[in-house]
């Protein structure tokens, strides 16, 4: 009881100190790795990118021996943080946690002031959202083929919600549409929550969503027809992947840590080793599981390759779907 109370008091004091610190703090000057490392996140706090980065940071700071501070810099669909990273010294004290989609998908649609494939040094790919296609629980469809059959019978009548134009969730449905030569109406929403709300209200026929779909599937409000990871999700072992259902699509939005391209190789290596170790810790895996994220592990080289392969794939798809004529940013 006594111990409990003290811990309780610590939390409260910590709360107040944190609060004061956030109002004005700046890094001090010292040598690597002797002061806290800042990781920029291009999205608002509380979102899946932010929470995943914080989970990784909590485990990695124990290995690195220095605190890791998450600094949210939302804006420009995640590109403001990447641009901000390039204005910092390449001393290993400022890194950026970003979804690969910002590097290779967003930058093809919008012009960005960096070269997506060469301005950054990929350090690790550490997590991905659980993407999937869901229908409302009263829908007659049991699998993707049911949707395809219905869409063939009623061309132009079915509509579906995604988390945004040109997003990975949109690309997944487009893959089906193109492969089976279907006609369906795309209704883009801003994020998974809006799209899920619309699905539950019966305003759209099915939805392609990110991790926010998990609670609704578990509570029986929706039914999951397919996921988009490489492997089946341990949460839903009975649900096939899109690949198993016969479509050439695997989630290309992997959450990663990148540094500036001219980050000294020995620092990059040190960080890569520390982060890789962190991704295997029990604490990290548990945190990810709670926020319904899927752990992945790409090392620096693998992730670089991943970006290059998917840049081309995405480029082909965006042009084919008429969204762009050519990439808005040169890749290198």
């Amino acid at each position, binding site marked *: 009881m006594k111990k409990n109370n003290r811990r*309780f008091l610590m939390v*409260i004091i910590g709360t107040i100190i944190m609060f004061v610190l956030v109002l004005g703090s700046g890094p001090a000057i010292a040598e690597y790795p002797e002061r806290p490392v800042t990781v920029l996140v291009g999205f608002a706090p509380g979102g899946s990118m*932010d929470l995943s980065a914080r989970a990784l940071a909590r485990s990695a700071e124990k290995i690195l021996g220095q605190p890791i501070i998450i600094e949210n810099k939302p804006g420009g*669909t995640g590109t403001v943080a990447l641009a901000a990273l390039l204005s910092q010294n390449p001393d290993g004290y400022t890194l950026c946690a970003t979804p690969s989609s910002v590097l290779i998908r967003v930058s093809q649609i*919008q012009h960005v002031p960096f070269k997506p494939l060469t301005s950054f040094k990929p350090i690790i790919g550490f997590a991905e959202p659980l993407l999937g296609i869901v229908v409302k629980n009263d829908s007659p469809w049991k699998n993707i083929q049911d949707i395809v059959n219905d869409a063939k019978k009623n061309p132009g009548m079915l509509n579906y919600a995604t988390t945004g134009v040109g997003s990975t969730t949109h690309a997944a449905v487009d893959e089906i549409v193109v492969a089976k030569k279907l006609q369906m109406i795309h209704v883009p929403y*801003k994020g998974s929550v809006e799209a899920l709300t619309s699905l539950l209200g019966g305003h759209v026929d099915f939805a392609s969503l990110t991790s926010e779909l998990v609670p609704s599937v578990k509570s029986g409000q929706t039914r999951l027809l397919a996921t988009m990871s490489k492997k089946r999700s341990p949460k839903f072992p009975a649900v096939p992947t899109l690949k198993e259902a016969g479509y050439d699509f695997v989630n290309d939005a992997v959450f990663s840590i990148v540094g500036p391209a001219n980050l000294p190789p020995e620092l990059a290596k040190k960080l890569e080793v520390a982060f890789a170790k962190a991704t295997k810790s029990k604490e990290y895996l548990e945190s990810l599981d709670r926020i319904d994220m899927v752990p992945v592990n790409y090392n620096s080289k693998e992730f670089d390759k991943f970006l290059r392969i998917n840049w081309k794939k995405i480029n082909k798809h965006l042009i084919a779907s008429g969204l762009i004529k050519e990439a808005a940013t040169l890749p290198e």
Partner: protein
Amino acid sequence: MDTLQGLLYGFSVALQPNNLFLVFVGCLLGTLVGVLPGIGPVAAISILLPLTFQLTPAGSIIMLAGIYYGVMYGGSTTSILVNVPGETASVVTCMDGYQMARQGRAGSALGIAAFGSFIAGTIGLIGLQFISGPLSSVALKFGPPEYFAIILLGFIFISYLSHGSMLKAGMMAFLGLILSSVGLDPITAQQRMTFGILNLYEGIGIAPLAMGLFGVAEVFNSLEKTTSTKILKVKIKNLFPTKLDWLQSKWAILRGTIIGFFLGILPGGGPVLSTFIAYGVEKRVAKNPERFGKGAIEGVASPESANNSATSTSFIPLLTLGIPPNVVLAVLYGAFLIHGVVPGPLLIKEHPDVFWGLLGSMYIGNVMLLILNLPLIPLWVQVLRIPDRVLYPLILLFCVIGAYSINNNVFDIVVMIIFGIAGYLFKKFGYEAAPLILCFVLGPMFEVNLRRSLLISQGSFSIFFTRPIALVAIVVCFALLLFNIYSAYAGKSRPEIESE
């Protein structure tokens, strides 16, 4: 467990000493965050999130929720005292609250805001407790066409938000719409009016815009008055609402509560929209609407009640459907998940301590906020005694810190200053900022829901007339417009029409 038993159980959870203390910390921090401009509940909750890992799920949710509704209490303070909205949901409060303060009635305004918030928050909670089930199914009925129609109704209220020329109000409304369309096209993801500036890709932020148009503009305005420092400062008349204040605002509080109650349930609607509608309704039903904008107490009571009851009811979609209806609750949703609690239809069965404990704590928190805020009023009123040459630089300083803290980005400060200059000029030439802000808030929702509706209906406008909720809202819109035109012709003209 029926509802009353549940509530008793909830109180037993919330009244445990640790949890009671957490309610207090949450409410206190919320009030602080509400008072400071810029720093909103989203930032506060996410900063404190990692520190709650040590607490029980119920305890941490109780504290974080306390911050959210505490902010809605505190947000009005700076609106009233210095014309700087502490929170987007308090922008409307600036219009009459600040005027009241300048007439020496800051105490009345702060008091009525606190009492109104308490009454509305509690009524909202009762709704949350007893009829959250049916209400959440109503919320789901709102698809794109229904939102479109409701927002159309919101636009009708532009005319009630101005007290000068209708033409000027219209111009400001259109400027608001244009500004709101900066950024990514919501349907095709093309950039609009971003001029290659990365920081504009997601549009202009509402917080720097509102802080600029109100707070910073007020600072610039004060520069003109340096010669008149000898003018006697207004005497502070009373510290708490008088009997007359109560008489004038009791129905306003109730109306605000009801408006907030229903708009709070709608995902995306929420507290901000409800304040504008509540203000408009007050002006519509007032016997002498010309008092509005010159310190009408109803103009403070109603919106402040609306945003608090909306805050209470916005928990309904989160707790019953697992849908966070706004950004703050999305962060709170993350907090639930981190503690292994999944909000949604199963919450009440799987984690009764969290569900009922949260509800019980919100009742307690509302009382606590009232007790916390009333003694502060005499203290706040002292702010007005600070000499202008000290007060205004301080306001500017807080605005700059606040703007930066939203995204940790200097660009937001630039935006705020630009709109500060614009706001100063608007004021000088008699253009009011309120219609601009309303349209800035509504514009993107209006556009995206119109376009989504037409996507669903494949271009046919019949979708707005074949769905009952949408149809009713559109009929009400036309009725209101026709009534306004009629009353203008019948000589019973409305003030904003007659003044030009």
